[in-house]
Every structure is written in C-alpha cells, then in structure tokens.
C-alpha cells in the first residue's frame, strides 16, 4: 500500500504537492513579511495625498483595465488605491476599456466601501456620492478621445452602468469637461491600454496627472513612461501594491493587514520554491539518482 503510494508520487507529482502546500500555508496563516520599499509606489501615494478634497466638482478618473486572470496583482493594486481615495473622501468614477473588467469594476468599490464601513460604523460611503461606475465602454482609444474632447463628461456618458441618468447622480455636481479630472489612475494587465490613454486622454489646454499600476511582467515598459514623466507614479505588480498597503497602514494605524501584503509574501515564497527546485534539479542532474529524461535541445 505505502510502497505503491510512494511509487505513485514521482518527482513530478511531488513538485505539484510542494507547490500546493507552500502556496496554501501563507495564505491560510496570513503570513506577511515586510514588503520591499518601492519608490515609484511612494510617488503615487504622494500624488494622491496632494489631491485637494475641498475643491468641488473635481473627480479622479479610475480606469481598471484588467480581467479575472490578474486579480491577484492588479486587483490588489485597485483595492489599495480605492481605499486610499475613499479614506481621503476623493470622489472618483470608475470605468474600463476591456470587457472582462466589467464585473470587476462593479464589485470592487462596493467591497472596499463595505470593509471601511465595517471598520468605521459611524461613517458612510455611498454609491453615487463617493464613487460612480460608468461600466465598460468599447472603442478603446477612439472612445477615450471622445471623453477627453467632451464638453461635459456626465453628458457624454448619459447613463451610468446601473442605468441611472448621470444628471441625477450627485457626484457629478459641478463636473464638466476633462478639466474637472484631477488625476487619471489606470491599472492594467493589457498591453497598449495605457498607451491609448497617454495618447488621447487630454485636450488642447489640459492634461490630468497620470498614475499607473501594471503587472510585474510589464514593469520595464512602464518604467520608460515614469522616466519620461508621462506618468507621475507607478505600482509594480503585487510588490507595488504591498508597499502601498504599508504606506496606508503607516498613515492609518487602525488599518488591518491587507491581502496585498499576504499575497506578496506568498508569491515570494513561491519564487523561493521555484529557485529551490532549480537547485534540487541540478543536484539530481549532477549526482544522477535519476538522470534527466532526455537532453533538452533547442
């Protein structure tokens, strides 16, 4: 029985088990190691801090262009940023130019708001007052251009994702053209979506400050825009989100440990495991208990 089991668990399956265990444990124990300092994320944090909250008719334009596939990375970024905006009572509208984001942008602000109201029972964050969801709009760059050129953003959208006409939404009081947008925050897992904003989200006179969150794969490209000053702050993958969470916790000490830090730790562990496996593989290769199957040849 046991012998047959051992025979069944070959190197391959052993690895699978290892992966499963090493990833599940930190998640369950909510184990968190202090994240690495991310200067780009700090830039973003400070930009949000700079946004004035007393000027009426100003909104932040939050574009979440990612699908379920990158929920762990982009999702954590979105949560952290939305929490920051809500805590500072900065009004924002959320929208997406990719279809798979449609359900996400509908649910995420609700979740964050619910969490905050749990934490502060005597405060209130309401849809239509603190944020509004404009839903998915097709047409990518073209559509973005129209928004930027529109004389009145509420009139351009006409109706929000939940079917209410923008005229009746209190958040839009005093909101006119793109000049009412104090900042654009774009979080994406898709190539080219940031570019379409960089190209089109501005008019002759005014361009809001651009803030960006990207997946770890895309960091090198995104850094080019940070260097060129086209974006003023950047969240790099989960690491960026984690450091952002740390910054939030520093400012709001009563804040519970957030997912991003846990996920960040988990992913760190996952990487260590992979590196460990590489080392182990080489040991096996050298001391040939089981020589590699066939020579991998390019």
């Amino acid at each position: 029985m046991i012998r047959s089991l051992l025979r069944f668990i070959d190197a391959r399956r052993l690895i699978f088990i290892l992966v499963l265990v090493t990833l599940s444990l930190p998640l369950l124990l909510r184990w968190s190691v202090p994240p690495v300092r991310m200067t780009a994320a700090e830039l973003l944090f400070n930009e949000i801090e700079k946004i004035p909250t007393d000027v009426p008719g100003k909104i932040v334009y939050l574009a979440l262009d990612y699908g379920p596939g990158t929920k762990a990375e982009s999702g954590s970024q979105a949560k952290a940023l939305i929490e920051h905006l809500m805590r500072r009572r900065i009004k924002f509208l959320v929208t997406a130019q990719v279809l798979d984001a449609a359900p996400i942008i509908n649910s995420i602000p609700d979740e964050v708001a619910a969490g905050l109201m749990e934490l502060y029972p005597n405060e209130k964050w309401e849809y239509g007052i603190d944020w509004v969801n404009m839903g998915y709009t097709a047409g990518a760059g073209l559509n973005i251009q129209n928004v930027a050129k529109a004389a009145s953003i509420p009139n351009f959208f006409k109706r929000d994702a939940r079917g209410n006409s923008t005229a009746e939404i209190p958040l839009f009081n005093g909101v006119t053209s793109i000049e009412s947008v104090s900042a654009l925050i774009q979080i994406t897992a898709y190539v080219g979506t940031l570019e379409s904003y960089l190209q089109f989200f501005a008019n002759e006179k005014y361009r809001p400050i651009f803030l960006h969150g990207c997946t770890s794969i895309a960091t090198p490209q995104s850094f080019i825009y940070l260097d060129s000053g086209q974006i003023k702050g950047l969240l790099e993958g989960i690491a960026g989100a984690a450091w952002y969470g740390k910054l939030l916790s520093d400012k709001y000490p009563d804040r519970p440990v957030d997912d991003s830090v846990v996920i960040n730790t988990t992913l760190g562990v996952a990487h260590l495991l992979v590196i460990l496996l590489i080392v182990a593989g080489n040991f096996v290769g050298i001391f040939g208990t089981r020589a590699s199957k066939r020579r991998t040849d390019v």
Partner: protein
Amino acid sequence: MSTALAITILAGISTLAMLSFLVRENSIYRAFEHIFIGLSAGLGLVVTVRDFLYPKILMPMFGWDIVVFPDGTIKDPGHPLAWMYAIPLAFGLLYYTMYFPRYSWMARLVIGFSFGAGGGLAIKGFFNEILPQVTASFKPLVVFDEGTIAWMSSFNNTVFVFTLLCTMAYFFFTFRRGEALRGIAGSGGRWLMMVCFGAFFGSTVMARMAILVERLQFLLIDWTDALLKVVGYV
C-alpha cells in the same frame, strides 16, 4: 440557495475538477473537460453570429438596418450595395463541398482564396508592425546629455544593438564556405538569446504564480465560506 451562492459552489467544483488532472487523468476531469469544450463551442458559435454575422452582414444585406421616420421620410437608407454580401457568403459555403469527394476541388478554391487574403494582409502587416520595430532599433551608440557623454544610456544602447545584431546573425541558415565571422556572431547571439529566455521565464513565474494564488484564495476562502453557508442553509 441564491444564484450567486450556486455560482460560487459550481465554480469551486469546476476548479477542483480541472486541478485534479495534476494527480492523473480521471473521469471527473474528463467530464468537465468535455463540458468546457461544449460550452466554448456553443459560445463561439453564438458570439460570431451575434457580434459579426447578424449586425455586420445579415442586417445590411436584407436592409434591416434601414430606419424610417413615422411620416415615411427615411432617416438611414443603409447601403445600396449591401446585398452583395451574398456573394462572399455563397462562396464561403463552398467549404462544405469538402465532404463530397467529387466536388472537393471547390473547397480548394475557397482555401486558396483565404490564403491569398492572408498573404495580402501579411504584406501590409509587415509595414504596419515590423517596420516600426526596425526603425525603433536605430539607437545612437553614443548619447550626449548637455554636452557630456551619458555613459549609462550609451552602454545600454550599445548592448541593445549588439544583442540585436548577434541574434539576427544567428538566424542565417545558408552561407558560402568560409564565412566564419557569421558563425561566431551566431553562437554569441544564441547565448544572448538564452539569457533573454531565462530572464523572461523568471519574470513570467510571477504572473503565473499570481494566478494560481488567486485561484487558491478563491478555493480556500470564498468557496469554503460558500460551502459553510450551504451547510448552515440545509
């Protein structure tokens, strides 16, 4: 039980079924695999009709897109030549002759046509996609910053160009005897490629693991919560 709850439960079961392949190919995996394929096939079919065939082809073809005001004045006359869509549609139907050996040569016509179209498009594609990448690689080997040499960017550009050229050189298949240089450049290019593949592999680990973590979170937290709800519910 509410729909949302049902969805979560079902999603969890589907996830486990797929992951069960890691242990070994089993009947549950097989069942869900076939369901998955069935759903995708159905979805693909409907989406094609809903998003392309109906609105872009059939509606104009039959003039369903013509809009008339209540007093009979025409608002949108549609396109007079839209009926011509019938031609490519009929031509495309020749694909189905492949099931009748006697007429299968007709299918070859359509296939030929499609290849031709693909070829024509690709020519344009080269100038639209590849050419910009070519010109984008024209990087100055020496970069000046207010009169002084910017060493870092100069170095980066040099490495970039060197890698580019070596890698391109690696892909020469034919050569005349005694062109050793290209061979050397080639093997250099091959090494650089390996570095690049390794680097990309490394950076992809993050993305893939992130997805796995997201799924595990779903299973360990959302799904278990849902299960408990159901248990409490029953």
